[in-house]
């Protein structure tokens, strides 16, 4: 491992710089002749310009292999009929999940350009047993089923397994609970990225942690401040990851910016891969200091979704008023809320203070006011200048 650490790390910004040069479009990051490239995907570009990701057919087999490993661990078997309600496009999203299902022998149903209601009705019609989506969309679909179709997914549909990707949520306890209750299904998390691959997964035992797929990835954890290796359980660090078999655009010591914590327990499933407690706890560029306190957006989500009477959506805005950081939290009151808005506000304020050590300007809105998302939701908005925090 000491030798590995001598290899410089790669960051997304470096990839952008390399790809801005000739030969078009991958620059000299491409490590095979262009003729060998069979797949193009790109990152979602949430931090600016997207990174292009070339893959050979062997790389694509490898992507499917990563996903087949995680789906098998989550209980997917040839008898499953898996519905994929996502837009098949330039983003990698669930593409590899699709091919992995084929590899396992599941029956795959592509729910590409259908709208949400049509997707729900199709899942009902064909009695799909599993699906994959972002946590935001899993909750959004359940909401549409109840409101627009008068269906209760936990009763009227046959979905028993849901695999999430693209956002945290499936390992945020309150969000996981909401999804599992809404669908009557087990919800599993997985972690990965376009430039890396699907490196981590929650297994059927649901240990509240992610397994690192160490047969296909080399994971290092670094201290956030010193950059020194973190090898002892219980300490948070940043994940630096290497994909062991990716060839077209290799991923060697990629700085994922994912914050993780190694745990010492062994999983009941019997796998001996490293376990990361709570999965991806946040992103190094998301966790920010507000009023001098470290704030992780996931902690706010866990509070909001743990309170009965609040809807699934929320929005956090951090801004500077004078010299003071100011946090506004917008939430929605569920239409079937069993308590008054005043009681909700008091409950929310107490829980936020307990779990995040911060005070908020709370705004309670009627149901349906806040924006809805299908893919990567942007619920945390830091409007301060970078130099301010």
């Amino acid at each position, binding site marked *: 491992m000491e030798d590995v650490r001598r290899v410089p790390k790669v960051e997304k910004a470096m990839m952008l710089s390399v790809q801005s040069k000739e030969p078009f479009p991958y620059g000299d990051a491409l490590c095979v002749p262009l003729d060998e490239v069979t797949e193009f995907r790109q990152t979602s570009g949430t931090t600016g310009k997207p990174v292009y990701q070339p893959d*050979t*057919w*062997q790389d*694509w*087999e*490898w992507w499917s*292999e990563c996903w087949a490993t995680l789906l098998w661990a989550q209980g997917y078997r040839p008898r499953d009929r898996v519905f994929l309600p996502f837009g098949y496009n330039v983003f990698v999203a669930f593409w590899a999940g699709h091919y992995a299902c084929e590899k396992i022998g599941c029956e795959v149903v592509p729910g590409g350009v259908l709208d949400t209601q049509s997707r729900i009705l199709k899942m009902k019609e064909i009695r799909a047993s599993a699906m994959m989506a972002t946590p935001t969309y899993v909750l959004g679909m359940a909401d549409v089923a109840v409101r627009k179709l008068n269906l209760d997914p936990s009763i009227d549909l046959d979905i028993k397994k849901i695999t999430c990707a693209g956002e945290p949520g499936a390992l945020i306890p309150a969000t996981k609970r909401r999804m599992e209750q809404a669908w009557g299904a087990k919800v599993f998390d997985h972690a990965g990225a376009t430039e890396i691959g699907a490196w981590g997964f929650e297994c059927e035992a649901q240990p509240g942690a992610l397994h690192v797929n160490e*047969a*296909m990835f080399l994971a290092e954890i670094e201290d956030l401040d010193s950059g020194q290796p973190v090898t002892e359980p219980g300490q948070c660090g940043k994940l630096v990851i290497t994909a062991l*078999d990716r060839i077209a655009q290799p991923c060697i010591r990629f700085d994922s910016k994912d914050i993780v914590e190694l745990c010492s327990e062994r999983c009941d499933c019997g796998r001996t891969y490293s376990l990361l407690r709570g999965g991806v706890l946040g992103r190094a560029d998301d966790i920010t200091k507000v009023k001098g306190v470290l704030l992780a957006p996931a902690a706010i989500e866990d509070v909001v979704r743990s309170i009965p009477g609040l809807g699934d959506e929320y929005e956090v805005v951090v801004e500077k008023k004078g010299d003071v950081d100011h946090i506004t939290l917008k939430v929605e009151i569920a239409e079937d809320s069993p308590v008054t808005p005043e009681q909700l506000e008091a409950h929310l304020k107490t829980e936020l203070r307990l779990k995040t050590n911060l005070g908020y300007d709370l705004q309670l809105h009627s149901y349906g006011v806040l924006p809805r998302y299908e893919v990567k939701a942007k619920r945390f908005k830091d409007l301060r200048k970078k130099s301010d925090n």
Partner: protein
Amino acid sequence: MDSLKQMASEVEELRRIAQNLYDTSDDFPAVNRNAKRILASIQMLRINLEISSF
């Protein structure tokens, strides 16, 4: 363990045959392209069995 060694040996034999098909099929595109895909699948078998590429 012996069965794993046996599997690994058979995978290497598969690879040798598929590589030979690929190398000798330049003028037969259908065979060449299918052999290429088979080689990619064989590489996944090598990963499954932890056969080193080096």
